[in-house]
């Protein structure tokens, strides 16, 4: 039977190539696939476009990817200069692109991509600086922005449990963007705290069906948001 488990971290992420667009789950620390990000750093790819709600701060993995010079563009909803001095320095020097997207629009653009749709109309950001260059459409007297799908070559997500087919469940607010990003990439890689045998997950409670998951890697529990040494040794 199909088994999407990757026994090694390297095996889980090695297909990621230079120039890839990568969706990375998480809202702040919960749900951020820190181990997969470590694995991505080890690959030292270049010219990556990273889509993440808030590219963390200080010692977080994505901040380190940026410091390593792996990232050419960041698409996010929340980029707080005080939390990411390296990013702001590169951005001000024109060495890294930034696209700020309202959080709900960011999520829906990926859902739309995953659902095979060509875009959607949202009232969010009408009349603001984030509407610049975007088409507006009026429906029943209300003005909307036309937003387009946002698809990834890869998604790196985090879940609580996986079964061999890649069916996933999540934990509390670590769910956040992960089920959406799983849908929206050509190749979705999950890190999971634990794996369980087939039929151990209740089909009524599966959040992400395995059809959206290409590979998973089991990490065990770890304390989130703590700086880890460069490299993936020990995982």
């Amino acid at each position: 039977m199909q088994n999407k488990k990757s026994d090694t971290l390297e095996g889980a992420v090695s297909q990621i190539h230079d120039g890839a667009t990568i969706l990375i789950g998480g809202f702040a620390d919960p749900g951020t696939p820190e181990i997969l990000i470590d694995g991505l750093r080890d690959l030292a790819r270049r010219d990556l476009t990273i889509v993440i709600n808030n590219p963390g701060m200080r010692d977080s993995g994505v901040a380190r990817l940026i410091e390593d010079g792996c990232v050419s563009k960041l698409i996010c909803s929340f980029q707080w200069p005080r939390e990411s001095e390296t990013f702001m320095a590169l951005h001000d020097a024109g060495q890294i692109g930034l696209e700020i997207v309202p959080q709900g629009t960011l999520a829906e653009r990926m859902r739309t991509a995953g659902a095979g749709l060509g875009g959607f109309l949202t009232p969010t950001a009408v009349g603001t600086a984030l509407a610049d260059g975007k088409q507006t459409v009026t429906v029943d007297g209300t003005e909307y922005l036309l937003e387009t799908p946002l698809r990834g070559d890869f998604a790196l997500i985090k879940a609580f449990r996986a079964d061999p087919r890649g069916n996933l469940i999540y934990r509390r607010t670590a769910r956040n963007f992960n089920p959406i990003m799983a849908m929206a990439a050509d190749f979705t890689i999950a890190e999971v705290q634990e794996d369980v045998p087939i039929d151990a997950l209740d089909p009524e409670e599966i959040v992400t069906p395995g059809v959206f998951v290409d590979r998973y890697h089991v990490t065990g529990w770890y304390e989130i948001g703590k700086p880890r040494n460069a490299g993936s040794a020990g995982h």
Partner: protein
Amino acid sequence: MSEQTNLLTRQQIAARAAQDMEDGWLVNLGIGMPTMIPAFIPSGCDVMFHSENGLIGMGPPPAEGEADQDLISAGKELVTMVSGGAYVHHTDSFAIARGGRLDCAVLGAFQVAANGDLCNWRLPNQTSGSVGGAMDIAAGSKRVFVMMTHTARDGAAKIVAERTYPLTAMKVVTKIFTDMAVISVTPNGFVLDEVAPGLTADDVQAVTDAPLNMDAVGTIDVAA
């Protein structure tokens, strides 16, 4: 007016805003002062709090030793889940916001204009900004309450006739709670509903850059 002493504390502003939360509401709280509101909701008033990172039924901070690293608010604080709550993913969370399921959002602001325009995501001189969920929530909530100091640190008015800061959402603010006053935003502009004890309507008007209707001004109840 006597300097500073008549300004409400942050707790008093939160307590006053909490008086406007109605039984049965689902409410989203912005980062900062609005997160102080739940402590002032009277028992028996069933208000649920939505946090856009996927939490319906956000509870108070965890007791010592009971924190769960996977359970945080949109403000990145450790929180708890109340009885009857639910976890959702991000598109459901924002369907709740844009789809009109939030009875109220309480947000901070840099500026509020007389037509209800909200400015709270970026300063005029910033090249990047941190919009987060503010635009979606402000655009979709049934009501938007603003909770803020009446003036900026440099004394500049934040309640203005027309905005000069970057826009978050057009014509959405319905009520403002400050350390000096409670002000409603109406089709005819600002209406001064209440002033802090010890202040006059003229005190408030003097630091507001838009005309206030002062036909029926009460006093904020800070005893509660």
